[in-house]
């Protein structure tokens, strides 16, 4: 479903992504971990072309993302994205945050879009906040709205870019719960996170990145119990020791 083939990315002299090969199957949950600055967010953002790649091949559903002839807006319809800082539209009510793209991009009627929006708000457990503005919600609630906003486009893939990193600790759980449910329902997910518990429990595969490279990829049991690479072991001992 998502295919990286020898993807390279440079920011000027800085080599951000080094020969990335990655394949994500339909229904798979891939969790990407690694130290900050390792390129994991950049890699994620390449999938919907928020970042461009310098060379190599990257296809989503068989469509070359970086081809000039590709209508990127069409590709993006099928890829939901959840950001670290939620990025809800502060001037729109929760419900209007969710209906904007379905109405404007998919051409769904307003009533239909609102019905869908309410369905997903129900699903993430905050249907009562539909008429509120984002600033009236807690961080955890905002992030759940952001997830509902992504889902309302009925995407084939959901991307999560450190979805719990900006949350107060007591709100991390409610967001992870929603993501866990989503994973169980068979959504294809790529998740960049520092939540090792989530990776261990929900991931089909864990990817460890360091200095722009995929250092190791393995099923979570193996990844956490017996990592092959020295760099992975060092990283894990740092993040799991506290």
């Amino acid at each position, binding site marked *: 479903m998502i295919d990286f083939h020898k993807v390279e990315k440079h920011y000027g002299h800085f080599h951000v992504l080094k020969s990335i090969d990655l394949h994500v199957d339909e229904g798979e949950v891939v969790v990407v971990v690694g130290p900050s600055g390792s390129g994991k967010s950049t890699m994620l953002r390449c999938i*919907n072309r*928020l970042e461009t790649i310098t060379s190599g091949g990257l296809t989503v559903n068989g469509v070359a993302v970086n081809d000039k002839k590709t209508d990127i*807006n*069409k590709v*993006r*319809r099928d*890829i*939901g*994205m959840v*950001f670290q*800082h939620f*990025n*809800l*539209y*502060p*001037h729109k009510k929760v419900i209007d945050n969710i209906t*904007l*793209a379905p109405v*404007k*991009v*998919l051409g769904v009627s307003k009533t239909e879009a609102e019905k869908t929006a309410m369905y997903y708000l129900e699903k993430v457990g905050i249907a009562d906040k539909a008429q509120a503005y984002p600033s009236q919600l807690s961080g955890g609630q905002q992030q759940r709205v952001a997830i509902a*906003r*992504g889902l309302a*486009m009925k995407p084939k893939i959901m991307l999560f870019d450190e979805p719990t990193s900006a949350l107060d600790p007591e709100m991390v759980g409610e967001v992870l719960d929603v993501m866990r449910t989503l994973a169980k329902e068979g959504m294809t997910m790529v998740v960049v996170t520092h939540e090792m518990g989530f990776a261990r429990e929900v991931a089909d595969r864990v990817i460890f990145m360091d200095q722009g490279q995929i250092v190791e990829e393995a099923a979570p049991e193996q990844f956490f119990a017996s990592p092959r690479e020295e760099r992975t072991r060092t990283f894990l001992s740092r993040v799991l020791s506290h």
Partner: protein
Amino acid sequence: MDFAGAYSADNLKFLLDGLYVTLIVAFTAIILSFLLGCIIGVVRYAKVPVLSQISFVFVELIRNLPLLLIIFFMRFALPEVGIKLGLMTAAIAALTIFEGAMISEIVRGGLTSVDKGQIEAGRSSGLTGVQTLWHIVLPQGLRRMVPPLVSQFISLLKDTSLAVIISLAELMHNAGIIIGHGYNYTIPTLLLVALIYFTVNYLLSVLSKRLETKNA
């Protein structure tokens, strides 16, 4: 100081006539310069090729010229190349061009101040660049532009008095005539005119405060 003489019914009516012209010129120019400023601001924000470069030169050129020179240009230079503008049109045109250049920078600044994450959220959901600008960036940017825009509009309203130089019968011009009519009209007339300018502009800023709190 001859207050009674200066504030005769005829004089007051004459001042009101001037105020009327001032308000017409100011509000027409406010609307037109806002439109011009929005267009140029958006073109420069979105870095529309060619248009953006032309806009840059235009804004830099106009911003660095005195408004008085632009008014002169409209009134005295254009007729020499066959473009004849009425007094009021010349004043409105000059103000629109000058203030439009200023406002375009306010608009551009307001748009640029909107968090990049907002654009990413819009674009990643499949909205086009134009849709993202219209539904997400512009509404948020506009709110932040209100205070500097109102300052600019107040400047504009006061700058209409510069049209006295081309004998447009606006408030300042009519005040000058009244002052010339009596021995001791200067202070009473100027006090009244000051009060009028102050009141109109103060109302404008009160209105903007309302707008800000409503939108906050």
